[in-house]
């Protein structure tokens, strides 16, 4: 069973639009990772959040972790076709030691 739930499962936006992807855990997380995956390629590390309330930005991508460390959002401003891919959140929920991933959000950006 997935301990990390991502929404939406897929997202199609017009170039230039903003978008948000959410990741929710039923248990407190030992921080959270965001990765991007292009079809047929490995995973590209985007950001890691460890503290409740933490927010990080890189270029046009901003990720936040809520105070309870059970929910994270990834926000892309002024999306571009290069942002297209599968976005995956990963974390260690509860007392788990392993790094568990959500089922991913497939993002398509239309030019």
């Amino acid at each position, binding site marked *: 069973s*997935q301990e990390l739930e*991502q929404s939406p499962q897929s997202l199609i936006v017009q170039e230039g639009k903003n978008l948000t992807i959410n990741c929710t855990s039923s248990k407190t997380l*030992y*921080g959270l*990772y965001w*990765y991007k995956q292009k079809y047929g*390629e*490995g*995973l590209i*590390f985007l950001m*890691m959040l*460890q503290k409740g309330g933490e927010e990080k930005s890189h270029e046009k991508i901003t990720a936040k972790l809520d105070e309870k460390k059970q929910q994270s959002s990834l926000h892309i401003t002024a999306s571009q076709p290069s942002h297209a891919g599968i976005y*995956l959140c*990963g974390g*260690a929920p509860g007392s788990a*030691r*392993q*790094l*568990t*991933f*959500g*089922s*991913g959000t497939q993002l398509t950006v239309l030019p």
Partner: protein
Amino acid sequence: GAGVSQSPSNKVTEKGKDVELRCDPISGHTALYWYRQRLGQGLEFLIYFQGNSAPDKSGLPSDRFSAERTGESVSTLTIQRTQQEDSAVYLCASSAQGWGTEAFFGQGTRLTVV
């Protein structure tokens, strides 16, 4: 090498055969993870090695799956008596100290069972 290396990159095998997948982590990384990704699906955790601790095998789907790691070096994932539902991309990742440090992923091994 500079990154996580997996071999082979592609493997086609007949149903019932055994396969071995290899992962060379980044040198010095104590933590190593194996994941399975079926077509259009997310990453399914399989097993986690951290230093000399007992591995976390809670994600292995059946006793046909096993993995070994020698110290902090190479790991092999073995699938015995392969079934068609084992067809997937198998991804390996390593990190310097486990949780709290970035996990670097290999390019994966695409396994097809015919």
